């Protein structure tokens, strides 16, 4: 254990003392900070724009204005519903968001007259002072088309609002022609039979937990998904460390010295632990940053803190935690050993780079499996893929919230353990050949053949 610790400590400090580590550590929070600041700034700094509607009366202008109002109210209602679900209740009241498009009276009645206003050469008066026109709607003479004119064709919000407004107007007029009131459809919708979501449980559980579907019911799936993704991210992150670290030692010709002081398994264990600690340090710092950010946000959004509880409960549940931890550890060791063994066969960074593509493909396969399992955990593809040891660590975690048969879980864990031991055996052989005897990538096939041949013989 002492030797493992010493190898771990040296490697860990070696990584942590490097500039690259601190840059990586700072990069994610900096990116998050810059991104969110930028997004916030983009929302807040979005200018209020003027538009006008050229029509004989005021029908279409009113319809567009009404559509904006309907959307704003719907948006606010959605926000309040979400906050009530989080337990914020009546604290959820708030002001409507400032409207970014404001109608002004048309400064001219035809396109030629409007052109200088639309091109920014002239301004119109409005509630926020004089501004050029962002867009103008011009009703055609036959009244069938409301043309949208603007110098900026990339912002379509206003056009989409107008399109929805026109549909709503047409529907209202059609209902009126049929002698029906405007809220006829709404009344009809309200009368439809409701389809509420219920969670079936055992009678005892049902009495205790009720039958409503809450966040607590969905949290295990998200927690399992997060764990599987986290494992994937960890494995993805260690590739460069394991490859580069091993190449450095191979090029430094240091293995002979090390191997007269420590056993090969101690050397490998120390190195894997060091890389695990480095990536964990990064993830922990990023996690802390995200948590601090969430805590800060929860002070701004009432009730957001209550959202965390179901996720914490799910993460602490033995049904998720035990298979999750076992899968996590075994998966990490398995993939770590593979990458480390491959790294020991490389002399240069260029040589290692040629290995990166197959490694990425190897890693993308579990990612596809994670995606499918997240979409449809009961899919036969996922059932079969879970039995493939390279996928098991990810998929077993993901399947746990869906109560797979216990025997399957135990057998799959056993299979995972057997595979991990086989990978360990093979990796030590490859690592020894690469690190001690200077074997290269080209020798891998010969080594594999030799090992299998020897075992068969």
């Amino acid at each position, binding site marked *: 254990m002492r030797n493992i610790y010493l190898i771990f400590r040296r490697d860990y400090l070696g990584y942590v003392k490097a500039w690259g580590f601190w840059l990586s550590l700072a990069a994610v929070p900096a990116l998050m900070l810059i991104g969110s600041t930028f997004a916030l700034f983009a929302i807040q700094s979005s200018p209020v724009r003027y538009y006008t509607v050229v029509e004989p009366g005021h029908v279409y202008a009113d319809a567009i204005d009404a559509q904006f109002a309907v959307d704003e109210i719907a948006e606010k209602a959605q926000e309040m519903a979400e906050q009530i679900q989080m337990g914020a209740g009546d604290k959820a009241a708030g002001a409507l968001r400032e409207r970014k498009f404001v109608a002004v009276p048309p400064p001219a009645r035809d396109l030629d007259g409007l052109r200088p206003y639309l091109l920014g050469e002239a301004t119109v008066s409005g509630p926020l002072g004089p501004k050029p026109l962002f867009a103008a709607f011009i009703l055609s003479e036959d009244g069938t088309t409301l043309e949208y004119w603007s110098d900026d064709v990339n912002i379509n919000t206003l056009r989409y609002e107008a399109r929805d407004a026109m549909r709503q107007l047409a529907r209202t007029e059609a209902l009126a022609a049929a002698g029906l009131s405007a809220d006829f459809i709404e009344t009809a919708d309200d009368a439809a039979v409701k389809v509420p979501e219920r969670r079936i449980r055992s009678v005892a559980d049902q009495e205790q937990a009720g039958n409503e579907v809450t966040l607590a019911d969905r949290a295990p799936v998200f927690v399992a998904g997060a764990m599987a993704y986290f494992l994937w991210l960890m494995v993805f992150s260690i590739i460069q460390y394991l490859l580069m670290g091993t190449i450095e030692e191979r090029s430094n*010709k240091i293995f002979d*010295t090390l191997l*007269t002081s420590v056993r090969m398994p101690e050397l490998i264990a120390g190195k894997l632990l060091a890389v695990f600690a480095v990536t964990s340090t990064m993830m922990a710092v990023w996690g802390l940053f995200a948590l601090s950010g969430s805590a800060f946000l929860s002070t701004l959004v009432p009730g957001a803190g209550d959202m965390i509880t179901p996720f914490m409960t799910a993460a602490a549940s033995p049904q998720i935690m035990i298979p999750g931890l076992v899968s996590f550890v075994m998966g990490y060791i398995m993939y770590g050993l593979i990458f480390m063994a491959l790294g020991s066969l490389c002399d240069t960074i260029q040589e290692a780079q040629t290995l990166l593509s197959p490694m990425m493909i190897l890693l993308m396969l579990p990612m596809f499996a994670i995606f499918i399992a997240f979409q449809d955990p009961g899919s036969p593809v996922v059932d079969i893929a879970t039995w493939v040891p390279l996928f098991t660590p990810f998929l077993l975690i993901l399947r746990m919230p869906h109560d797979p048969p216990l025997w399957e879980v135990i057998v799959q864990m056993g299979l995972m353990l057997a595979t991990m031991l086989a990978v360990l055996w093979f990796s030590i052989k490859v690592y020894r050949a690469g690190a001690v*005897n200077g074997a290269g990538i080209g020798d891998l096939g010969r080594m594999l053949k030799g090992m299998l041949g020897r075992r068969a013989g």
Partner: protein
Amino acid sequence: MAGSPLVLTQVTKRFGAFTAVTGLSLDVPEGKIIGFLGPNGAGKSTSLRMSLGVIPPDEGEVRLFGERPNILSLRRVGFLPEERGLYKKMTARETIAYFARLKGMSAGEAKARANELMDATGLEAFKASRISKLSKGMAQKVQILATLAHRPDFLILDEPFSGLDPVNQQVLEDLIRAEHARGATILFSTHVMEHAERLCDRIVMMARGRKVFDGTLPEAFASLEKGASIEVETGFDLGTALAAKGFAAQRAADRGHGDAWRIALPKGVGPQDALRAAIEAGAPITGFAPDEARLRDVFVSLVGEAEAAALDAPAGAQEGVPA
């Protein structure tokens, strides 16, 4: 400490079709300095790596302190590999202390020992220098100190002098003598015979993977045919004069002012005996030079001039180990 630190019995190592070491038997006596000599590619490094369990032999047995090499027996060994390598981003002191700790020293003890060794070898100004900032020779010195920092009972040094300038070669010779005086057994490989002549109690010579000599320095020199050169005034027939005394002499060169004669010395007879016989024969002697026996000559006599020429190649030029 009792017994031989290292015993190899009929050890053979093959790399594919290439046999690097063939049937090597070796017994390293305790407390001695042993020179492991031979040209590059003779199998020295492979033998040393097998001795430490870094690579396993295909045949034969290796006993290190009476056991198969294991982590405990290896703790009593300090090994300097032929291919030098250190962590470039560590400082010199950290490096020495780190390897001492891997050999079982406590953190405090290792740090103190690193300081002590660096002070003693003139490296005190480089304690906090990164290995990458040190010259090659300086880094090699650090690695040598790291090898002996844990006060090993047995030092195995593979080509320790290669890459060092004459001053540092002398420093290393002094270090080896100091370690020997401390009681350590030392086995070092070299293809430069002069180091072995100055340091070794015993030598083992290797050529093409086989041991060709194993014995003390006097035993090595005894195996050589010895001789001497005597110069006499022109015209004097030293051959006839010495034949009567039982010596074979041949005229080797005309030196202008006299003739040089080469005398072959029978076993057990020294060059002084030949000189005395020439004086007694009334030879007008103008010069006398006994042959200076060198290990290189011993090696040449054992393996031939062609094989011995490889001694002059730089270290590591041939000794690659295939995967």
